[in-house]
């Protein structure tokens, strides 16, 4: 009777040990998976930042005063306003 309770105890301990070992492996795998995700996300962030900067550069180049002035005069026939034609809106 006493021997059987020992076996039960050892079995439980072994199972706990096995569970902990598996948990450790599982946790490590999860860490790796999250590590990959983080790495990909960081790369994506870097790429998107680059794209944003490219778009900002394009926006600035398209809205440069020289280009707007040229478009305004050549395509729309506009000219710079005289001082009395300027109305200020608050």
């Amino acid at each position, binding site marked *: 009777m006493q021997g059987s309770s020992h076996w039960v105890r050892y079995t439980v301990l072994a199972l706990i040990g096995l569970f902990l070992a598996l948990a450790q492996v599982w946790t490590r795998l999860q860490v790796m998976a999250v590590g990959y995700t983080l790495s990909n996300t960081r790369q994506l962030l870097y790429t998107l930042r680059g794209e944003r900067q490219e778009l900002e550069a394009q926006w600035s180049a398209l809205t440069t005063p020289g280009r707007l*002035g040229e478009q305004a005069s050549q395509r729309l026939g506009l000219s710079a306003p005289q001082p009395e034609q300027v109305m200020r809106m608050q």
Partner: protein
Amino acid sequence: MKERLLVAGSAIGVGLLLVLSRLVQFTVVQSGQLARQAASQHNQRLIFTPRRGAIFDRNGELLALSIPAESLFVRPPKLPVNVAAQVPALAEAIHASTQEVNTTLRSLAPFVWLKRQATPQEAAQVRALGLTGIDSLETQRRFYPHGPLAAPLLGFANIDAQGLEGVERVYDEYLRGESAEIVQERDALGRSILAQGVELPPEALNVRLTLDIDLQYFAQRELEKAVQTTGARAGTVIILDPQTFAVLALAHSPTFDPNNPKSVADEVRRDPAISDPYEPGSTLKVLLAAAALDMNVVRPEDQIFCELGHYQVGKYTIHDHHPYGWLSFAQVLQHSSNIGAAKVGERLGKETYQKYLRGFGLGQKTGIDLPAESPGLLAPVKDWSRINLVTASFGQGVAVTPLQLVSAYAALANDGVFMRPYVVQEVLNADGKVVRANSPQRLWQVVRSDTAHRLLQLLEKVVEKEGTGWRARIAGVRVAGKTGTSQKVNQNGGYSAHGRIASFIGIVPADQPRLVILVAIDEPKTGVYGGAIAAPVFQVIAQQSLARLGIIGDQERPPLPGAPTPVTLTAGQSSARRAPGRGATIPQAAAPPAGAPSFLGMSLREAMLTAQRNGWRISTTGSGYVTGQTVQNDPETNEPMYVLTLASATEKRP
């Protein structure tokens, strides 16, 4: 049975013992060494260089930034045998000639650049060819979205993102940022695993300039027009804020595109406004006048005999452009008489005059935060003879940079206080927090405040109908300024027979100075006088700049007869900003006063004009034509205000 169990158990026990012993060997005895080996295989050390910081104008407009690029390289030994067939496609992809590509591919070196700083599209096209032996590295490319605008001031960076000229050079340490070593794990396939978390690499700092891109554009455009129409060799415009000495615009013609700086000669990439001194001619008479008035050696109404155009000083004869007899000192300035100025200079004396010239910053660097500044040329007082004093009185024999001269005028516009000019307002980190701020730096008082005010009044006469600078007049704005026509020094040290610099420096508005503008046109072919060549350029730049800054415009017009106090026009976004918040009392509709106008059917512009004429405040929503109007009390001022609803013409126009 029992024996078998014993044997089996022993075997298992021995096996387990062996495993345990290996475990102990790996985890205890050799743990340090194995951990190091593993780390060297898993961990990758990367040197991360941040993208170069951006440069903004004072309003946050991007002037320079770094964008991703890929540098394509070739390992010739690894190229496929049939690579020759792909050369035309490769050349087309990177916009190079087939000859260049062939030379690169046939190189005997183990590593050759195919194209540095290729665009993402070029890199993608090369990758699509699927050639082994051709690969790429992520790099950055400096881009200046406004092209040549403010190029000499901005400078440029080289292919390795190192600032070489202008702000790029002086603030390189901030813009470049610091490289950092980052350790990251990688798997057997070389993929990175951020198992230890994300270590964000440091970002470079950004720089905000004092420049206003719109003013810069006005200056550049008008300068280029003037250089073209007069057939001039070159030209410079500087706009300075006299209250802070912040540089608002600095333009040159000819200029260059910093996106492709190698396309022009080295001298075009220089910044002549701070590097190239010239003899300022009559514009220097203003500094003489400031000194003379400050020392009380002359009063504006004092009469000076101008020798009918010829004044003998030793063996030299001084000439005026027109012969004058008696002129008041104010008229000497107005008509820019050399002889009148020479006589005032002699009254002042060389020591005193030099003291003031140095006080105005001549003969020394202004200390602006740009590279290669010249101190100009102001010989020591002991080396000045009488003729040197006389010629220096009308701006000969003294060399100044355009920046020095505009700074001296700015001191007059700033109640006589001289300050340090600057072009960088702030250095910001990636979150927009200020890391370093360049605040206006007051240096010293050159002349008394009342002297500066009196002089500005005299300079207003220069721009009057009889003055040399009448073409600089702006309707509704008081302008003070001075014309200058200076002879250029030739290579032999004498004066050039034909080389002239026509210039004008103006202060606007003269009663409350906000801008000091220098215009210098180098060797114009259609004339030589500053009043004829440079003053009209000043007039356009000043007018547009003042309108842009809101200093002139509709509010400057004289009020119409019978109109009440000036109106504040409120429209568009302002109505949203001024909307009452949660819990605020909704304004009650007020009865329109008798004779109040109807805005129905008007365009926004017509409505604003009507409101202005009648002294009414308006607030608008929508766009197009006015389809509805109510009168409410303004929650802020409790005054009646029209609330207009606008709709587009296609929707409804009553």
